[in-house]
């Protein structure tokens, strides 16, 4: 019969004692920070990939015009390098495991000395190479998933919006930025929130490159006292707390989106997130 070590369990669950341990305190900060930065990177990359997939850029079109009788040239003339790049990016990063991508990026680039991921010293803190590589891998991987979400958001907007904008003399980029994307945002935000929820959990795989996140903190504590049952329950509960708080914030954000814009009062972020009941 296993003896469950309650005092240890509580020690590493109760924030007052658990966060006194710098491994866990800094790990929690790293998990949150990496999640936010990787997700932001994913949104930016996803936006570019989505626009790339919609690109109509065919620089070799003149080939088909010049030699309409040559099938291979006509075929080549429809080649769209931007769309190809976007497709290849999405194909690779959705089609291979994140764990492998991250290992390849960190260990692979390291061993070849293409990039060694040196630590960055910034203000009062040090950002380890593993954290940089982990964030980059998470963000680039996330971008491939965000691309489909952003594209679905853009395609949900009536084509009449783009036509109306163009008929007023706006360029494609202007129409996208000022008319289509602000509307698409409403469609994008709910799945984006779910992606962020996933992201906070997925950051834990950075343990493979020893990036000092929350899970890494618990594995390090476990390495000295070997209480995996108690400690990993504690770790799971910290992740549960993070995702639960986020789910609550997300619900508030989505409720705000559903409101009529004219009725939104100016409330502070704090009030918006934590206020009970409606405003």
């Amino acid at each position, binding site marked *: 019969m296993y003896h469950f070590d309650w005092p240890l369990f509580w020690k590493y669950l109760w924030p007052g004692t658990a966060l006194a341990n710098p491994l866990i305190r800094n790990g929690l900060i790293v998990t949150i920070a990496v999640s936010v930065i990787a997700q932001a990177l994913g949104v930016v990359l996803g936006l570019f990939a989505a626009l790339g997939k919609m690109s109509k850029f065919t620089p070799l079109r003149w080939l088909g015009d010049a030699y309409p009788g040559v099938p291979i040239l006509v075929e080549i003339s429809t080649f769209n390098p931007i769309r190809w790049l976007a497709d290849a990016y999405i194909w690779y990063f959705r089609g291979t495991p994140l764990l492998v991508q991250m290992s390849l990026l960190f260990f692979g680039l390291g061993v070849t000395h293409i990039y060694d991921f040196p630590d960055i010293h910034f203000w009062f803190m040090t950002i380890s190479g593993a954290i940089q590589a982990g964030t980059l891998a998470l963000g680039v991987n996330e971008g491939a998933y965000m691309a489909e979400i952003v594209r679905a958001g853009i395609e949900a907007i009536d084509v009449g919006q783009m*036509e109306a904008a163009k*008929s007023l003399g706006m*360029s494609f980029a202007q129409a996208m930025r000022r008319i289509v994307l602000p509307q698409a945002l409403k469609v994008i935000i709910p799945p984006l929130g779910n992606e962020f929820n996933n992201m906070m959990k997925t950051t834990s795989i950075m343990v493979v490159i020893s990036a000092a996140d929350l899970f890494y903190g618990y594995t390090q504590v476990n390495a000295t006292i070997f209480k995996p049952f108690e400690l990993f329950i504690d770790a799971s509960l910290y992740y549960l707390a993070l995702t639960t708080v986020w789910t609550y914030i997300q619900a508030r954000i989505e409720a705000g989106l559903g409101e009529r814009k004219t009725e939104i009062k100016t409330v502070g972020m704090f009030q918006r997130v934590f206020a009970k009941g409606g405003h």
Partner: protein
Amino acid sequence: MASLAAPKTTVDTDVVVKFDKVNKYFADLHVLQDVSLEVRKNEVVVLIGPSGSGKSTLLRSINHLETINSGYIYVYGRMIGYYEKNGELHEESEKNIARQRAEIGMVFQRFNLFPHLNAIENIIEAPMNVRHTPRPQAIADAERLLARVGLADKRNHYPRQLSGGQQQRVAIARALAMKPGLMLFDEPTSALDPEMIGEVLDVMKELAGEMTMLVVSHEMGFARAAADRILFMDEGKIIEDTTPDELFTNPREERTKAFLSKILH
């Protein structure tokens, strides 16, 4: 891409829109068949015809929302959507197409107001971002236009807070804010409840005479009151090009008669 050698640009500055043997296909469907047409300054031209006859396509090709397969379209004597180089036509750059479109107002069947912007923001959007009009000036112009379409009190209303007729009037004001000399109306009242059609047509009647207008519409009352010419289209061709009086009292073609008897009951 249009492939015929381009003729010299028209010199008659009174001709605002000119179609020269325009052809357009949707896959195998020949939607515009050798269409030639001239619309003069300040003329009001109403296009009628059965659905699928090509009237909306004709209208939309004027501001290059539809590409054409051959022939030439000129607005103010300038070819639309294409330029000529070494005897061949090439599609214009996006920037130049946008510049051409800025001079042509368009009103859509489904209004297409920007739902995330209120009435005044819808109207100032293009003047500020395309023409770079300073905001106070753009707002002053927009308020004048809103008053003109009878909606001065709806300034801060969002599209969803407006009736269909009000939305379409804001859409007209939005198009007018770019000070176009040519306005295209693509079935502007087809999506409206009957009691709202009049308010939109009244605004359009008031514009008639001030600018060149091409209107796809089956509102015969409007055609009678405001149109200088009526074009009857069928199967991608302009079958009849005449005045409203002539059309209603003495249509020449059998197809025109058959169509009129259907819509006039």
